[in-house]
């Protein structure tokens, strides 16, 4: 590390990184468009101008992304010259920008807006006609390009060249006529296209899925972990008005995913947004239909059913957290049963970048706890021979597949699921929160912990999985229900 002076303070700077990285590491803001820490610096947008004084040379305004760190350099991000240079640069960037912020999906998280607000000038001095380019150019299934909004930072071009290493975008034409395009207008391919919408500092590249779905300031953002594979990419879950998940976006994690995530994970909110949620619990009525009940009553029914026995098959969902797994182990040891979890076959999404092809986000965590991984076929066979069964966790029914429907209705089967498990064998369904509604830990393929965080509340009447399990455990041990306060649903 090298010592430099930043805004009058001495800081440590990594000499292998450009100056802007040192400034950002100090959490001092410096505007940037073309610079991105995950991509090679090109120094073309010229917005990151700061004043630098080295040795006896007079102070100069330079771009921080292409200036090497040198011992003793004196950097001022707030000098008059630096402010003026950035203000001028912003005026040029806005010269042809359509300023359609009211209908732009990026509004609210657009750095062209932010920096203009911070340092730009309030008055536009151009009376010239603005560039007319394509406003709605499809770049494939994922991305829509608005060429008028583009400020040509080329982050998207470099992303495909440097991260998935499949160059697909180019800057074509020249000068003020430059546009971003795919070669010969071919659609973008690959599982990492969505990242360029995050990278785009303006609203030029937007996700077709997110277009006009929400104003970003209405989204509540919570840190979490992706559920789609055993990489467990760090993500942010973004929920609109406490209801639907509108976006999953990558969150920087040096050990796991860097700045990126795959499109499979990015758009995997189908289950989380599913309308057919089990809002409380349900038990099989005498006529064969389902009757909604309080979870407390459902737990009592489980005891009465006699499903909690040593020869019951206990099957966990691969989405179970480590904490839930521990609680389930308690229950299993109380019963004397052996726990396993459904392990769906590896899919063909495995790549060299992030996706592991293993759809179990917590395989490592559950295996380490002592859960046995088994295929759906194997487990359904075991289920067919067992007198009782306990299925625990979100999507466990779906992952076990069609084999479940063939089970005899004489079997005593209890499911802790997000959805009603409407199969003949099922007797009791207890609603549990899904992965955007609960907290806990998954352990990824490399043994790195990832926290999942609640981005919204589970439906009222749904208890935490750990609580349901501990109540069940108590029911096994005591043989009698612990008194519960009314209204203590969560």
């Amino acid at each position, binding site marked *: 590390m090298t010592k430099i002076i930043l805004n009058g303070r001495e800081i440590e700077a990594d000499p292998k990184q450009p100056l802007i990285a040192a400034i950002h590491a100090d959490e001092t803001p410096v505007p940037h468009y073309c610079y991105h820490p995950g991509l090679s610096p090109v120094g073309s*947008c010229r917005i990151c101008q700061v004043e630098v004084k080295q040795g006896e040379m007079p102070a100069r305004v330079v771009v921080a992304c292409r200036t090497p760190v040198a011992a003793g350099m004196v950097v001022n991000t707030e000098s008059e010259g630096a402010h003026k240079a950035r203000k001028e640069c912003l005026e040029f960037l806005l010269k042809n920008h359509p300023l359609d912020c009211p209908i732009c999906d990026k509004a609210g998280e657009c750095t062209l807006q932010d920096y203009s607000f911070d340092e730009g000038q309030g008055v536009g001095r151009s009376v010239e006609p603005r560039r007319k380019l394509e406003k709605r150019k499809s770049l494939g299934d994922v991305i829509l390009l608005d060429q008028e909004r583009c400020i*040509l930072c080329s982050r998207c071009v470099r992303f495909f060249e440097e991260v998935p290493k499949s160059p697909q975008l180019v800057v074509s034409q*020249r000068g*003020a006529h430059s546009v971003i395009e795919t070669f010969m207008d071919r659609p973008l391919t690959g599982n990492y296209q969505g990242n360029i919408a995050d990278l785009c500092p303006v609203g030029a590249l937007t996700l077709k899925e997110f277009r006009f779905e929400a104003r970003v300031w209405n989204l509540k953002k919570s840190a979490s972990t992706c559920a789609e594979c055993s990489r467990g990419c760090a993500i942010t879950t973004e929920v609109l008005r406490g209801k639907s998940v509108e976006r999953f976006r990558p969150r920087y994690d040096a050990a796991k995913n860097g700045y990126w995530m795959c499109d499979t994970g990015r758009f995997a909110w189908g289950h989380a947004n599913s309308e057919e949620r089990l809002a409380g619990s349900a038990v099989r009525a005498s006529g064969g239909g389902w009757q909604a009940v309080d979870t407390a009553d459902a737990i009592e029914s489980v005891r009465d059913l006699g499903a909690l026995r040593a020869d019951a098959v206990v099957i966990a969902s691969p989405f179970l957290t480590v904490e839930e797994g521990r609680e389930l182990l308690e229950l299993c040891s109380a019963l004397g049963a052996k726990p396993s979890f459904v392990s769906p076959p590896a899919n063909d999404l495995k790549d060299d970048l992030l996706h592991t092809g293993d759809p179990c986000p917590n395989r490592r965590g559950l295996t380490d706890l002592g859960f046995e991984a088994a295929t759906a076929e194997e487990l359904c066979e075991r289920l067919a021979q067992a007198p009782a069964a306990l299925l625990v966790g979100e999507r466990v029914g779906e992952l076990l597949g069609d084999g479940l429907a063939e089970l005899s209705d004489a079997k005593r089967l209890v499911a802790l699921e997000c959805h009603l498990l409407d199969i003949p064998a099922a007797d009791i369904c207890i609603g549990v929160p899904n992965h955007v509604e609960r907290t806990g830990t998954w352990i990824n393929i490399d043994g790195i912990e990832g926290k999942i965080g609640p981005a919204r509340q589970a439906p009222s009447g749904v208890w935490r999985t750990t609580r349901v399990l501990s109540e069940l455990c108590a029911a096994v041990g005591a043989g009698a229900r612990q008194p519960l306060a009314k209204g203590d649903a969560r």
Partner: protein
Amino acid sequence: MSHETFLLDRIGSEDSHTLDGYKRAGGYEALAGILKDGRDPADLIEEFKASGLRGRGGAGFPTGLKFSFMPDPAKDKRTRYIALNADESEPGTCKDRVLLREDPHGVLEGCLIAAYTMRVQAVYIYVRGEYRVPYQRMAEAIAEARKAGLVGKEVLGSDFTCEVYMHKGAGAYICGEETGLMESLEGKRGHPRPKPPFPAGFGLWGQPTTVNNVETLFNLPFIVNRGADWFRTMGTEKSTGNFLCGISGHVNKPGVYEVPFGITARTILEDYAGGVWKGRELKAWFPGGSSTGLVPASFIDTAMDHDSIKGIGSMFGTAAMIMLDETACVVRSSHVIARFYDHESCGQCSQCREGTQWLSQIFERIEAGQGRPQDVELLVELSHGMTPGKTICALSDAAAIPTLSVVKHFRAEIEAHVEHAGCPLRAPAEATA
């Protein structure tokens, strides 16, 4: 007109572009001498430094010093290159064309001496795409020289080996910028690279590279033959030797003339170019091509050398003097120039991409009679946002500098355009048409 000349002396005979013609005039003696004596490259660099030779591509950087930036080959084993910049595209500049077309062997010998001096393995000659005959002549010269053992393995039986390749540009001005040229040679878009790293450390394909102008290297054989002291007898103390002045515009005899540094612009205009045409008065002139500041006629007695031209707020550039007579409209000529830079901006840097277009649009509007009083100040402020050194390369400066100079010297004429809602110089018939 009684000064020593040497640059264009061989030109005029029918076969000046052939090996025979060149050899008859003493060609390749400098190279042969160096190889025979096994001259120490460090010695040659000192000789070039002592000569005071400065680059003729526009910046006027000392050539010997530039050569010395190449890393020591004993410590740095990478392949080394010279890129000869023959992408002469600055409006007004046409001097290298003469050398390539009429004296290509002189250019080649200069390249080979530079290659020997910097222990370079290959020279790439990047020729402007429109230069068809010069390209052909240069290619023929290389073929002839190769046959004669002057290019390729073991030149003239020595242990000096140097390949020479040619490349034809595709018509972009920006490929004349040294790093844009290297990108283009590598087969990429001609986008200038940010510096550092500098070409001497990270140039063509990441190898040590020096980019030189044609006329610069053309001087080397003369310096080797006659010595640095002789070279310093011409020109001024800080700008030594002769230079090729391409004078164009409203003059009687536009052309390329060899003159010593320090000669006044008036001498070039009157004694060489035959004065302003049609008996008119001079109004303004560009000393060194369209990217240098426009100066009014009153500066015509300025000496043509780097420091004197800098003293009048312009640049020596490539010594491509463009003369405007009294009938010329500076707004119109500014628009022509601004449009050129708008067209040629590569589009990487925000200021240049948007600024060159904006300047062009404003000049166009003022010339068309739609100027606003605030436009004059806007031109100045936008130009200050584009220069100096605010972008990766100097194209942004090249557009801003003439704009600033035109406002500085001809503000009244621009304001008259705004006031009259059109060009006050245009004939009434033309204005109403």
